[in-house]
């Protein structure tokens, strides 16, 4: 291996690492606020990539119908209580978000020529379909058992994951797809050659991190989420409903997941079940941070990206094995550091 190849591999590693870092941050956030280990994070990645790809092939993505169906189920479950107690304002809000919005969006997608509207609008439409699914998913799968043990929540999380993979196969078929690059530009600095897509990924990474930082530090809703993560009873006493925190967190997680998918789709061919593997790499990173530390998780993600890039050069067949076996030394390290018996539930 010469320096040029090393640079190229590092660049690959960092690009993928940045995406794993976003996913890792989302996983840590979801776990801190809701205690849910969010396995379906990866499905939002593949849904994001493949919804975008369907736009580019001129099709209306079937994911919109999942949004419509989820919305209808939410309305069916929640409207009765609101009608009974005559909370009209809340009822209108419920119907607006879960019924009107998906239908209007579906109408727009059939009427507008999304294929020719440019990548930015396609990205926005992709997010418009997928991000609201986050809170709906929370409402349907997790809210009824929000106070259950971490283990139960994890099992539900896995159940949601297998459902989403199965549905993904119906929506997108078994073929893998790759989207157009956001930029075909290439920049040469001496030995270093950087392509435009890498810069897009890095720039998106930093803007998203900054936006999240501002949200958590400056807004009262952001503070409410942090408060929930720190002290659940305290948060409830402030009138911060666990359901609100949960939905808000899932909104952010879905946003991060779908956006990661859109960013990675021009680099890697994405199949309906690729997201799981990508999400799990985010997990390995999140575990490096013990599922609690954001900076350690982000650093771990870059490490995972680099190890993956270099092992694909040396032992490409064993790439995945190497990455997932990495979890063993990580857990060992965490285990040696832990002294007290962990809390029981």
């Amino acid at each position, binding site marked *: 291996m010469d320096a040029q190849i090393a640079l190229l591999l590092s660049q690959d590693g960092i690009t993928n690492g940045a995406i794993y870092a976003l996913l890792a941050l989302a996983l840590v956030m979801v776990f801190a606020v809701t205690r849910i280990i969010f396995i379906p994070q990866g499905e939002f990645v593949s849904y994001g990539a493949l919804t975008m790809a369907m736009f580019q092939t001129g099709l209306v993505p079937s994911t919109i119908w999942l949004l419509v169906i989820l919305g209808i189920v939410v309305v069916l479950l929640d409207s009765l209580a609101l009608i009974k107690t005559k909370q009209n304002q809340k009822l209108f809000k419920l119907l607006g978000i879960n019924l009107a919005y998906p239908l209007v969006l579906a109408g727009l997608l059939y009427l507008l020529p999304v294929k020719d509207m440019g990548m930015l609008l396609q990205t926005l439409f992709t997010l418009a379909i997928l991000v609201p699914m986050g809170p709906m998913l929370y409402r349907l799968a997790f809210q*009824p058992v929000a106070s259950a043990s971490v283990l139960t929540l994890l099992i*539900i999380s896995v*159940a949601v*994951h*297998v459902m989403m993979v199965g549905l993904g196969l119906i929506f997108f078929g078994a073929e893998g797809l790759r989207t157009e690059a956001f930029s075909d530009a290439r920049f040469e600095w001496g030995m270093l050659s950087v392509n435009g897509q890498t810069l897009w990924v890095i720039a998106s990474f930093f803007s998203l991190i900054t936006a999240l930082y501002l949200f958590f530090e400056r807004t009262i809703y952001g503070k409410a989420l942090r408060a929930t993560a720190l002290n659940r009873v305290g948060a409830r006493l402030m009138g911060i409903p666990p359901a609100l925190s949960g939905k808000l967190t899932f909104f952010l997680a879905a946003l991060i997941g779908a956006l990661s998918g859109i960013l990675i789709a021009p680099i890697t061919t994405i199949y309906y079940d690729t997201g799981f593997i990508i999400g799990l790499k985010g997990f390995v990173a999140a575990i490096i941070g013990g599922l609690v530390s954001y900076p350690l998780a982000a650093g771990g993600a870059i490490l995972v990206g680099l190890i993956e890039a270099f092992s694909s050069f040396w032992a490409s067949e064993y790439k995945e094995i190497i990455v*997932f076996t990495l*979890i063993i030394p990580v*857990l060992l390290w965490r285990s040696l550091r832990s002294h007290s018996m962990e809390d*029981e539930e």
Partner: protein
Amino acid sequence: MKPLLSSRMVLGVFIVLIAATPLVMSPFYITLLNYIGLAALVALGLVLLTGIGNLTSFGQAAFVGVGAYSTAFVTTSSSFAWLGNSPWAGFIIGLLITSAVALILGAITLKLSGHFLPLGTIAWGISLYYLFGTAEALGGHTGMTGIPPILVLGWVLDQGYEIYYLIWAFLLAAIINTKNLLDSREGRAIRALKGGRIMAEAMGVNTLYSRMAIFLFAALHASTSGWLYAHMQRFVNPTPFNIHNGIEYLFMAVIGGASSVWGAIVGSSLITILKQWLQDLLPKLFGQNGNFEVILFGLIMIIVLQRAQNGLWPLLAKLLPVQHELKTINPHAEPLAQRTLPTHGEVILEAKNVTRKFGGLIANNNMNLTVHAGEILALIGPNGAGKSTLFNQLSGVDTPSSGEVLFLGKPIGGLQSRTVAAMGMSRTFQHVKLLPTMTVLENVAIGAHQRGHKGVFSAAWRLERAEEERLLAEAARQIERVGLKELMHVEAGSLALGQQRILEIARALCSDPCLLLLDEPAAGLRHLEKQALADLLRRLKAQGMAILLVEHDMDFVMGLVDYVVVMEFGQKIAEGLPEAVQQNQAVLEAYLGGVE
């Protein structure tokens, strides 16, 4: 009223049904039953792990894979010709490899919170699947063929109905072993893992060992299932061992009912039959091939966990009126060895200048106290005075920032609570910690954990009945000693609070201690219950026990104890004989409030 069946009868009917099935069913159904049996073997391990031990694994399919590939390699590779390429050698080697992997995975995850094991098993499940697919020696994605059938006593099991008997014999043995294990000393420790780890550790249980034992147990069952599978199919490829099959096994256990061994059979039957049916139906519906049935399984799973967390078995069990068998106690069982109690007046526990700081907060400041054999010492003080913090130092749960605690002359700082328990100190909890669905007898028997030594294997094969008899007799003796004899076979959760506190004392006594630490034993008790408790403590004292109790209620303490230490703001403000302390102005201030 419906007639009650004994659980032996149920098992008997089950065995007859299994034996008779091949005589009446067509080969198609026999094959289906073979798959159900193989899956149930895996799900059974998950019942123990998830429903009872509060752990879980998504990587069981990978252990099935280890079992299958081990035997495939051993029976087909020329490098194992020296073992005669025997399936039984393959079985043993599979179990050995599985144990090694499970021990490594367990060692690095089980010390951490419960959710790290499942995450570790996901990663390991995926890695292993890729390894099966890439390793050339294992045939890559095409897999390995030419696996011979199993030979049992000269009988070649190469027909579906033949291996059927072997599969179900293994499953039956696994069910019986599991039930035996749960009904033993180690089994009580395992059942305490869900919601009682702190208590179990304080009673001398090594919960890390118990967690490791059930993980290993589950892995070995999965490996066995893989071995049977390989010799039934006569070829192996990586597909059945991927992570999604691992998830499906967990679904079987949870949907069937992870709290009972029968749940594993219900769940694996349901999922296997549904899968068979849906795999024909759904691809036609969607016009393409794929595992669409998982969508439905995922949905059932979510609904089960939201609506009926214990799965389907408890609902079915209601239809089957099985009689609950009471445990028999053999009063003539040889009593367990007892430690010699220290002589009256000997120093048992000594706190020397104990200071505990939390950040800038000083919770205990320079506390000193001494407990003697045959004496009751009360540590009293208003709420928030730092009594609980001191209690934690004294019981070895927490280590002082400076100063030390000596128990029988030895410092206990930094020791595990089970080590302290072994030294002869036993305790109760301020917020009662017992296992509500276990009987009073079983709860109390946990206290005697360290007085027995037989392990999980002897328990599974019932080789420890003599010791078990002695342990139960001891538990019964302690229950009688505290006056709960009538309630011995009642579920502990149905007792009144006062009785639950007494139960905790019986449990502590079961460990044969020379010092009892009682944390607010009278809190929340009614007047008569308090009197009963005081009488019991007096009797124990007369028998030579040293007792330290932390109390808030002065009335309870007076007239009962020999010596009182009063705390406020983390410091000792008074000590002495009860009558003297009662008159102390500082104590009255502390109790009544000093605001004018």
